[in-house]
Each structure stands twice: as C-alpha cells, then as structure tokens.
C-alpha cells in the first residue's frame, strides 16, 4: 500500500466541472492512500485577502477558466483495477483545515431565500485551528467540523463535461455535513480507473446549507481507496462510525425524501434481511430524514439509519 500527496495547483485541478475524458493527475493502486491539499476561493477576494492566499491559488486563477460551477476540484485520480460497474470505497482517514481563512457568500437568485436576500454579500471568516472555531465578527463563534462538499468519480462518458454544481449518481456536490473523518463513502464507478476528484472544503455547515455556502475553505484530506467488486449500487451511500447514510437528489425535496427512503428500505431488505413492510415501519420509527442542502439545483435529503439498533 503506497501513500501519495496531491497538492492542488494549475496542473492538477479542474474548475467547475467533472469530465470522464480528463487526463489523470495521479495513478494509484487499489488500497493506496492519497493526501489531498485542496483550494477554495474567489478571484474577487484576492485583493482583500492579500498574502493569505497561496501562490498556487493565484496560479490557478491566472491559468484556468471556470466552467459551469465554482468548485476547484483536485484530480482526477486513476485507480488501477477499477472497472465500470464496480464500487469505489473512499475511506476518510483524516480532514484538517489548511488555512486560517475561509468565506461565506450569498447572491441574488440562488440560496434558500432568494426573495428575501436579492443582493450579494460575502464575509471573510477567520479560522482558529487551535480553538476549533470560526469567527466573522458577528458576535457568534461557530465550531469547526470540516468535510468536503464536493467529491466523486467521473460521470458516464456519454454525459461529456458536466457542471460540478449538482449532486448526482457520481457524487458531485453532495454537501453532506456527515462526511467527516471516519466516514466511508461508496460511489458507483462509470469509467475504468474511476477517476476520483475532490474539492469544495467546508469548515462547517448546517443541514440544508441555507444561504448557498458553508465556510468555503482549503482543506487537507487523507483518503484511502478500495475497489469493491463485491458491491453494486446506483447512488452513493455512506457509512459513518454510527450510521448508515442513504441519499436522494432531486430538484424537489419531497421527491428527494422518497428516494432516500427507498434506498434505506432497499438496504434493510438486502443487507439486513428485513421484509419490506418491516423495513418501512422501521424507517418510520428509527430513521431520521434530514435536509442535506437546498441550494444546488438538485436538492438533497439524507436518511440516517443508526448502526446501534443492529
């Protein structure tokens, strides 16, 4: 098992999209571990932030054009042996904040309350890594709980270049705050090598991501990759230390909730041997439906099934 480092710079990122035809930034073997150093940022903040911005990020801004979405994705990583139809298990071994700054912004026509906030605003947020808190001078300090908002494998080739904005079968902009250190995410694989990319570090976020941003910031993530030929899934699923997590994505939350519920019942039937009727009742009694995000066009609901009841 080998260990690699991938530090985001102009040679190994794609900005705002996923694409199965991208050349790999790194090739690894099944079982290897990669430490990703990711960047988040906006060109218009460089003046305000001054030398708090890394030279690599400046370099990315001057050599790349943003396509579709906002996310600076590090990758893709080609995993030897991964074939279409397999499942990629990504084991999140560690997540650390990378910089002492992040930001939160909202803007017209997007976010959870576009009618109430028809203007742009961005705040720079100071990150105190030692105390584990973030502060932007509003009188409250929020605890840091970092995770990656956007990661996944390449979409099917037939999709071409797709925006990094929605969550989808390949992962993408899931913005699921449960994906912290100790969580495993399972992605269906659509291309040989899987072609995994990661970005969109969030210092913290509430369920829902109400205004369209978490604390957007650079993170350092240590991921172990395994190719699972024994599994078959249609949508990403996850397993934290305490829960099985199932996800539904749809422009309408009511539909996303149904998808997450169906995924949970499917798992209870196939992996736990429950009759579907009992699985449905168990969902009503013990599974928590939570709003992942309402701001990515395709909204998200995730279902939390506690492992302790088994």
């Amino acid at each position, binding site marked *: 098992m080998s260990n690699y480092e991938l530090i985001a710079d102009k040679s190994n990122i794609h900005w705002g999209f996923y694409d199965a035809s991208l050349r790999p930034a790194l090739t690894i073997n099944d079982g290897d571990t990669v430490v990703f150093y990711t960047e988040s940022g906006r060109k218009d903040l460089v003046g305000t932030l001054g030398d708090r911005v890394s030279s690599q990020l400046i370099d990315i801004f001057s050599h790349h054009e943003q396509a579709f979405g906002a996310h600076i994705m590090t990758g893709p990583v080609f995993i030897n042996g991964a074939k279409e139809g397999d499942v990629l298990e990504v084991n999140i071994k560690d997540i650390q904040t990378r910089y002492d700054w992040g930001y*939160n912004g*909202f803007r017209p026509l997007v*976010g*959870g*309350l576009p009618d*109430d*906030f028809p203007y742009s*605003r961005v*705040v720079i947020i100071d990150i105190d890594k030692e105390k584990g808190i*973030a502060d*932007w001078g*509003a*009188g*409250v*300090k*929020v605890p840091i709980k970092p995770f990656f908002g956007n990661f996944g494998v390449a979409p099917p080739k037939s999709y071409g270049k797709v925006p990094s904005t929605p969550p989808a079968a390949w992962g993408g902009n899931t913005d699921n705050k449960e994906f912290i250190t100790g969580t495993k995410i399972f992605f269906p694989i659509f291309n040989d090598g899987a072609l995994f990319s990661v970005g969109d570090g969030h210092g*913290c*976020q*509430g*369920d*829902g*991501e*109400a*205004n*369209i*941003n*978490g*604390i957007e910031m650079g993170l350092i993530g240590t991921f172990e990759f395994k190719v699972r030929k024994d599994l078959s899934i249609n949508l990403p699923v996850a397993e934290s230390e305490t829960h099985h997590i199932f996800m539904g994505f749809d422009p*309408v*939350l*009511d539909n996303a*909730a*149904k998808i997450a*519920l*169906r995924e949970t*019942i499917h798992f209870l039937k196939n992996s*736990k041997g*429950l*009759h*579907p*009727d*009992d699985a*449905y*009742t*168990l*969902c*009503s*009694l*013990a*599974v*928590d*439906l*939570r*709003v992942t995000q*309402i701001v990515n066009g395709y*909204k998200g*609901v995730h*279902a939390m099934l506690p492992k302790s*009841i*088994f």
Partner: protein
Amino acid sequence: MEFSINKLIANSSTVQWGFYDPEAKPLFNVSSGDIVEVHTEPGMREVDSEMREIVSPELIDIVENGERKLGGHILNGPIGIREALAGDVLEVKMLEILPRYNWGFNRFRPLSGGLPEDFPYERRIIIEIDKEKNVCDWETGVPIPLSPFFGNMGVAPPLNLGKVTSGVPGPWGGNMDNKEFTEGTSVFFPVFVDGAQFSIGDGHGCQGDGESCLSALECGLIGKIQFFLHRNTALDVPMAESSSDYIFMGFDPILDNAIKSVIREAIKFLVERFEMKKDDAYTLCSLSLDLRVTQIVNGTKGVHGLLSKSLFEDMN
C-alpha cells in the same frame, strides 16, 4: 409558590376526538405555573378483536361513546389557562413523559404515508413495549430505543377557522409529530382565543425524523406538563426550546416551502433575540442551523430547524 397539580385521564367525556375547536369549553382551568398530569390514549377509529384483548376500558368507552369529528387523534382537553388572551404566548413544558402501557402499534395504509406507490395496501402491527429495557420490538430482531413524545398538541385555532382537523399541523400546533419534543423541552404556542384552550394526545413511543410510513409507535403516554403564560412576546407559529437547541418550525404541503418558513423564523429570532444583522443571521443559518424533515405524512408536511444554544453562551 405552590402550583396545583391536576390529573386528566382520557375517557369519552375528557377528550376531543379528531379536531381542535375554538368554541370548545375547557374541562377545567389552570393558572400559569400549574402542572397537569395527562394520561393519553392512542388514536383509533374502531377497536377490532385483536385490539380488544389489550386496550383499556377507557379507550373502548371513547371509541364506543365518543363523538369523532374530522381526524383520528384522541386529544385530552381542552385545558383553559386563566388570564390567557389572544396575542399572548403559551409555554408548555414537558416535565416528564412515560409510556403508559406495554403495547403500541404502527400502521400504514393505501394512498398515504411517505411511499404510497410502493406500499398500496394496509398493514397494522402490534408492538411490544419493554418499559424496563426502554425498547420496543415487533419480532424483527431489531429492538428500537424508546424516546417518547406527544405527536399532537396545541391551542384552539383562530375563531374564523372554526373546527379544524387534528390531522394537520398549523399555527395552533396540532399534528406536528416533532420527535424533538421529549422530556425537558418547552413548546411555545401563539394564543388565538381567550383561555388558550390547550389539548394534547397522540403519544409516540419513538419516531424517526420524517415519520416515513404514516404512523410512529402509536401508544398511550403519561405526561407531566407545566404551563407558563408569556405576555411580552408574540409568535406567528409554534417554536420550541430543548435543553440544547432552539427549534423552529415550518408547515406546508410542499417541503421546499416549509423549509423557507423555518429559515425565515430562525432569522427573525436571531435578529430579535440576539440583535444580529439579518445578513449575518442568514450566514449563521447556513453554517449552524440543522434543517430536518419533521414529517412527510400529514398532508401539510413539516420541516424543523435546530440551532444549538451553545453558540450564544457568551451573548446571553
């Protein structure tokens, strides 16, 4: 100060079955600070032969002699609160909630529930409640921990609405089915008619966020609840406060709309209570407000937002 303690046990003369009514007369009146011990029964429209073996004589009395209107929930009340006037806020504190019986049930039926297309038939199961081990079980091999709360409670709705079904949540409370309303939580209701006229029932032994299949562990509960009347504040919809969180609620047939109401309620609260700027409050919601699906099965669906009280320790 001495508060009086009343006991209110559900029977055919002490419940409103299926509705909230702004013109209903109170069973009795209490003062701010008083405690009432309610003994509630799960809602059912008939007692079939399987149920007849286990239900209380009081529940048989309700089903045989009570008058059901509009919905199905059996609500103890109404309890009048002395000096409560329209425009006040009624705080109802859950001091203690215990399962009343060693049984409950769960049920789904066609055309309702979270996945009506997948489950187009009726099913009801009796579920055993083990009070000592604090779990319930219906022989699936997966015992589920109890976390009891009242699914349905509220004040009388505004006069102009007349009698409303107990099936939906609304500004008066009603069928909120919010699993956060466990022991120690205070729920705050806007008062619409003099005396507030509070009713409570629909015990749930446990429930997941969403109440996926239509019903939870429907069971009888014993609750000790304390009433406080607040004059210098106003509310449009109920909110709550647990030991750890402020809880905001939104109700709408479409979840996407319900969630907007919740974020708006949270922002309004942050601006009024903590004098935050509206823009900062919106950012704080994005970073710290946890939006959860309360229930998807009551026609009018629910979303609630949890905001940790620990964020404000330095500001209080």
